[in-house]
């Protein structure tokens, strides 16, 4: 019996995982979420920008493979910005990001009745990784002379006073790779000293805690849980919050599997 349990067909495990995700979603259970310190820090920073009537630079550094984790985060941040009339400039540092960025900007922009060019602008993608951040720091218009559809930046009202990265009151990077750690911090934040925070996939989140303690990052949204916490702060529960019940159930199932597997292992060793 123990041997059978230890060598169980993995497709049975797949079924458990699928049910653990699907059933809570179908049951539409919303678990209460407690925002953590690092997420609250991002919220507070944006509130400060709102009071100063500032401009935020939102950098999209993720692709379609991490869309389920990152899009809810982008929506929550944009909802906060637009609800406080914060102006948003969006750029993309990953080639797959423009389609996703455009989608979320138009969706949330329409939701709040924002005007393109006045309340927000989308400047598209530039290849070059850290070189784009370096370029933006020196001369923003050198890096992005036009928006995503060829309109010169001079023709966009909210871009008229933006020359370098120093002109932004806050920079937020939505990252699925190492753009926070190896592009934005060394090539941007270190030299120009702007308040900087990031949202990242859960895989990368543990790597970024040193930058929180050193003050190089103001705050951090880690994975879907971070997005759900931000939705709670913004007061608008959406896909991230809905996903937390499924996340909780699936985690519990995997923990039970791990404990079960270890119990079977130790029992078989005793025999």
């Amino acid at each position: 019996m123990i041997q059978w349990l230890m060598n169980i067909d993995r497709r049975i495990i797949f079924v458990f995982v699928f049910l653990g995700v699907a059933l809570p979603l179908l049951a539409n259970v919303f678990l209460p979420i407690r925002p953590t310190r690092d997420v609250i820090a991002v919220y507070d920073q944006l509130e400060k920008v709102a009071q100063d009537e500032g401009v935020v630079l939102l950098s999209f550094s993720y692709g379609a493979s991490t869309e389920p984790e990152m899009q809810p985060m982008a929506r929550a941040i944009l909802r906060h910005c637009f609800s406080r009339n914060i102006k948003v400039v969006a750029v993309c540092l990953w080639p797959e990001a423009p389609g996703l960025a455009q989608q979320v900007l138009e969706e949330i922009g329409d939701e709040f009745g924002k005007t393109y060019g006045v309340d927000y602008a989308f400047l598209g993608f530039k290849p070059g990784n850290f070189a784009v951040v370096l370029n933006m720091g020196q001369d923003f218009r050198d890096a992005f002379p036009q928006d995503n559809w060829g309109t010169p930046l001079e023709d966009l009202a909210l871009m008229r006073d933006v020359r370098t990265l120093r002109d932004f009151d806050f920079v937020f990077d939505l990252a699925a790779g190492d753009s926070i750690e190896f592009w934005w911090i060394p090539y941007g934040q270190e030299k120009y000293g702007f308040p900087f925070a990031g949202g990242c996939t859960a895989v990368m989140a543990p790597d970024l805690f040193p930058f929180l303690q050193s003050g190089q990052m103001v705050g951090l949204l880690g994975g879907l849980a971070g997005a759900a916490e931000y939705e709670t702060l913004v007061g608008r529960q959406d896909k991230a919050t809905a996903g937390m019940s499924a996340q909780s159930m699936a985690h519990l199932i995997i923990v039970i599997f791990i404990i079960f597997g270890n119990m079977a292992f130790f029992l078989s060793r005793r025999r």
Partner: protein
Amino acid sequence: MTRDRYVFLGLVLLFAAVNGVLLANGVLAADWEGLGVIVAAGLTLALYSFLYKDNPLFKVAENIFVGVATAYIFSQNWYQTIYGEVFVRLSALGGEDSASGDWWLLAPTVLGLLMLTRFSRRFGWLSRFSFAFFVGLGAGLTIPRTISSFILAQIEPMLQPLSWSVEGFNLLVILVGVVAVLVYFFFSVEHTGVVGKVSRVGIWFLMISFGASFGYTIMARLSLLIGRVTFLLDDWLGIM
């Protein structure tokens, strides 16, 4: 027909039937968006069929995805940089709209084109100039910023005064942990005696860190699964 082919045919017919019902009931609109949802759901299920076993449906979906993604990434580079910056500015050279600095664009354009000689046996050596520029400049830009952002900026917060408080205790643990981990990775000295004991402490810190990373990795992958299942249940089937 083999059993697998019966299963395959059955699943395709079931998928078609389900979509027919969804269209008939108005859950899916009979427009481009509705067709898109059907295509996306079909590709999602085709890729998930790999969980049962590797099959042609999975491979077809995978390879179509590779082709579409490659073209998309190329198009972004084309519109935003190769056309948007290089072509437009170089074609205006000498004209009314050109700036004096635009002549310098010839240099990176030539370097970029030289890079493409990589595939030529005869002229492949020319691409070394492009790589030398890219790698050399990248290395030069990296050094001072690494020292500043990763070494100095990371050491400074560790060297804070300790205190008899939770904060002080945490700072002490961090200091001990960083030193222990660095000792563990220092392989020029044999890990015996005091060095061995400190290195052991480093391993404990690393294990905690890897455990945290593992936990978060599981969270990340499950989040992606939740996203796809939400799409299937909500956007496609409309039962959420």
